[in-house]
């Protein structure tokens, strides 16, 4: 691959807990990726616009407020509408196990819950993007 993997780390919704998002952003950067962090309170529309504008390979979203079932699928949906469904979408945060199958079904490729080592996330992204 010529260029490093580009990742948009995004905080959809209104919750302000960005420790996880920032730690992941830094770990991905230390893992050799180019990282753009959106900051707080991003709408799905804003996230998709940023993803396309920044020409990223991955959108990594973090949410702790419980609004994931509403916001994650919306991002996938909008990416499809923009013909950008090749962008890998992953999510993390406080997400109940029961919600994960449905999220995966709509196109969130992986959900990382609390306690996941950052190296797992890095490996997952690398394995997906290579294919």
């Amino acid at each position, binding site marked *: 691959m010529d260029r490093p993997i580009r990742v948009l780390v995004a905080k959809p*919704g*209104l*919750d*302000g*807990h*960005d*420790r996880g998002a*920032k*730690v992941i*952003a*830094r*770990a991905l*950067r230390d893992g050799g990726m180019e*990282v753009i*962090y959106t*900051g*707080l*309170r991003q*709408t799905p529309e804003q996230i998709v616009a940023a993803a396309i504008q920044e020409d990223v390979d991955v959108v990594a979203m973090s949410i702790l*407020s*419980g*609004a994931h*079932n*509403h*916001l994650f699928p919306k991002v996938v949906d909008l990416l499809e509408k923009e013909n950008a469904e090749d962008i890998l979408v992953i999510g993390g945060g*406080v997400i*109940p*196990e*029961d919600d994960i199958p449905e999220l995966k079904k709509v196109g969130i490729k992986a959900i990382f*819950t*609390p*306690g996941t*080592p*950052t*190296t797992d996330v890095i490996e997952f992204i690398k394995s997906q993007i290579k294919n």
Partner: protein
Amino acid sequence: MYDKEKLKEISQSKKEWQKTVDKAISRFPERREDFSSVSGLDNNRIYTAEDVGDMDYNEDLGYPGQYPYTRGVQPTMYRGRLWTMRMYAGFATAKESNERYKYLLEQGQTGLSVAFDLPTQIGYDSDHPLAEGEVGKVGVAIDSLKDMETLFDGIPLDKVSTSMTINAPASVLLAMYIAVAEKQGVSSDKLRGTIQNDILKEYIARGTYIFPTEPSMRLITNIFEYCSKNVPKWNTISISGYHIREAGSTAPQEVAFTLADGIAYVDAAIKAGLDVDDFAPRLSFFFNAHNDLLEEVAKFRAARRLWARIMRDRFNAKKKKSMMLKFHTQTAGSTLTAQQPDNNIVRVAIQTLAAVLGGTQSLHTNSRDEALALPSEESVRIALRTQQIVAHESGVTNTIDPLAGSYYIESKTSEIEEKAMEYIKKIDELGGAPKAIDMGYIQQEIMDAAYRYQKEVESDERIVVGVNRFKVEEGSPKGLLKVDPTVGENKKKGLKELRDERDNNTVKERLDALKNACETDKNVMPFIIDAVKAYATLGEVCGVMRDVFGEYEQSVRL
């Protein structure tokens, strides 16, 4: 605390002891080369009188209820009265929350604590596009006085003390509380409680800000001034280290950044013409209780001593109450694991001990399932019972500040105080907390610490039980709380009804009057109270202030 001759003897015998240690280590090495606290402070093998040799009992410790309050703010502490067991709770709708409060009061809880949903915390009504998917999720949704009336229905506001976790729109929620009380026939001078009202830590760590730094500080001083005259028993701010710690800070950083914020509020209030002894007694603090039990106890003691010194020496406060750091504690949500969640009960118990041995005035204990979902009723009960067991069975409440005099505790108390002081000096040099925040300095320091910790866990330098050691295969947890997804739609309907029912001319007049007040330097509180009494919504009131004040823009540095 010791005479020089004695210290010499101790030093001499320590050298002797060192020889036996060396011998032991040569045969059986210690588990690791260096030991350090969760905050990264070095832990020596042993602490002795030498480590506290230059401590002055009266100047550095004193007695409970006496300057510098290292040993506690009340002369009898828990022998007189236990801390307030205050569980933070808020569920979807005002009606459900009201039922939960009544349940908790029946279970022996002694104070209410209100969690609001995120749209409320950011000043949006439930029908705002950004509120989509968030209504009623992390707390109760309050759109207008009507919801507040439901929330406190049947709860006599002259009998309970209520803590509201609300910051950017604190003025509006306080106004609604005052209005509900008035309807119950309770005058505002009888109201007891706390609003968090600490905007600086929102910029630093928690993220529910609305307005830029300057108008936010003005709103806060307006509240100080209004309450000192009209709601004298109300704690007008809870200066919060909790979220700073959750964001990944160390214990000394938690103390430093919290007290630096405190200094900024005192400065702002003095600048606004208030006398320090008029408002300082109403300041309260909010800290985190982590797993490193003894470091945490030292942290609470250090914070109390440092604040007393700051208030006396920097602000020339005269009243004793101005120098007392009173605080609420919450156990550390960030230490709870999604893996083997029942283990969290044990973590919370240790953290409860830390808070109690540290002399907290009130305490929220987290529920075991918080890394998975909002807590279930059963989990909340166990968390409350944990406090009751520590209070009534452990015996630690029988003697005040029982760890005082421990070489380790006293030495750590001084070390944390010194480290915090260094940070405060640095922040002073940058022009104070608001400037240091606008520059991103404080956020950056916390981020560095958070990242360091994450790396330590991932490299197994730090063991987290169930996460990087002692793992088991687990099925998915059962019995998690789910929020009814129809809440958002119902709230939208309710808002529409409200806008049809109320006298919209009065609403407009009062919102215009508020706008006017915002544009001048009048105290906005009376105008906000008038507006909410006419059933202007939270979103409308905050909308007026957004128009005048603008919105804060976050500076992000990774």
